[in-house]
């Protein structure tokens, strides 16, 4: 059994995840943020479309933090994740 990465959703998106605030996603060795998001969002297309556009790019005013750090300042969705890591999806202040 793979260890999990936890994806924490903002309140406004939780109804698109059946009311869940957190999604625990199995994490394979060598996985990156994109892999975790792919798994977390695969069966939730409406949620997925809020976070990433149809090219797979993160929406401009959506921030993804891995273990507290904005992945844009690392390798974006190619940032490696560790088992037990936590990904926060949050709206940026710039989009309001």
């Amino acid at each position, binding site marked *: 059994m793979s260890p999990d990465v936890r994806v924490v959703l903002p309140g*406004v*998106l939780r109804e698109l995840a059946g009311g869940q605030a957190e999604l625990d996603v199995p994490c394979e060795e060598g996985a990156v943020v994109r892999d975790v998001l792919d798994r977390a969002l695969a069966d939730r*297309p*409406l949620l997925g*479309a*809020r*976070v990433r*556009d*149809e*090219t797979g*790019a993160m*929406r401009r*005013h*959506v921030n993804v933090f891995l273990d507290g750090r904005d992945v844009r300042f690392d390798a974006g969705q190619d940032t490696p994740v560790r088992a037990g890591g936590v990904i926060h999806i949050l*709206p*940026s202040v710039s*989009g*309001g």
Partner: protein
Amino acid sequence: MTQTVVGIGTRKGLWLARSEDRRTWSLEGPQFMMREVPSIAFDTREGRDRVLVGVRSEHWGPTVMRSEDGGRSWDETPEGAIRFPEDTGAALARVWQLVPDPHDADVVWAGTEPHGLWRSADGGRTFELVRGLWDHPHRPEWGEGAGGGAIHTILPDPRSAESMLVAMSTGGVYRTADAGHRWEASNRGIKASFYPDPFPEFGQCVHKVARDAAEPSRLYAQNHHGVYRSDDDGASWESIAEGLPTDFGFVMQTHPHRGDTIWVVPITSDREHVPPHGELQVQHTTDAGRTWQVHDSGLPQPSWTCVLRDASGVDSREDTGFYFGTRNGDVYASTDGGASFTRIAEQLPDVLCVRAVDLP
């Protein structure tokens, strides 16, 4: 008793104004709070009470919402109604236009940013990109107006399901006569004041085109400087700007029943998006642009607002109601051809789209 509904799409949500006598209005909303609503289509074909709206969140992106009960409840296609195919490498930025087809009650057209024309054969649940236009060799040279690069005007031809005219900023007018396979630029006579060659084949910043109610081969265009009429299905255009205070503006609204009758809202210039001299006004012609009458009764003066390209609409009653909304959140109605206006909504966010419908 007939009820008129005016859909008001704003920068921060949707409002619906309802009235039976068009004197007293009840305003419902907001819906889609903090999401912009740049496009609305009321679909009453075959007795439906369907509403489609383009919605866009700055954070969470664009989508199409669909109501089967006149805007009281909404649904969204789980996989997304409009998604650019993977091979295009494009992503939907905004749904600028939603238009029910006059020939097939299941068909709805959408115009998007980036410059995409889309066809739905299931009433707006899912749309397919019209490849003939997307693959046009001109597309790499189509640009962006101040609002973005988009197909904002879709005019199906009421005489033929094979024919259609679209307009885009920038790019100009394009027409097809073979159901969207081949498209030709159709801008002869329309000026592009921002190019060294002011009359290029394409590249014009046409703001809105509308079709005459009585003579379908007659079209009117409000351009980025220039107001035009075409009497040959859009093959060529001639200026009808003489008599107007300015030739800039965004709105081009035709009467739903009466030929030769249009309304425009003059704006000072491409550098000054305000009414000329702060005088908010509607200009009205009943002779296809040969002469113009100014209407400002009931409109606030002075006013330094602006009226955007889709922020006007008409109902279908015999004494047609004409409606428009401003960027400072007012919506005005006239039931006497524009001779006088009353404010039916105020203090809303900036108005992007106004559409009206009559329900039995």
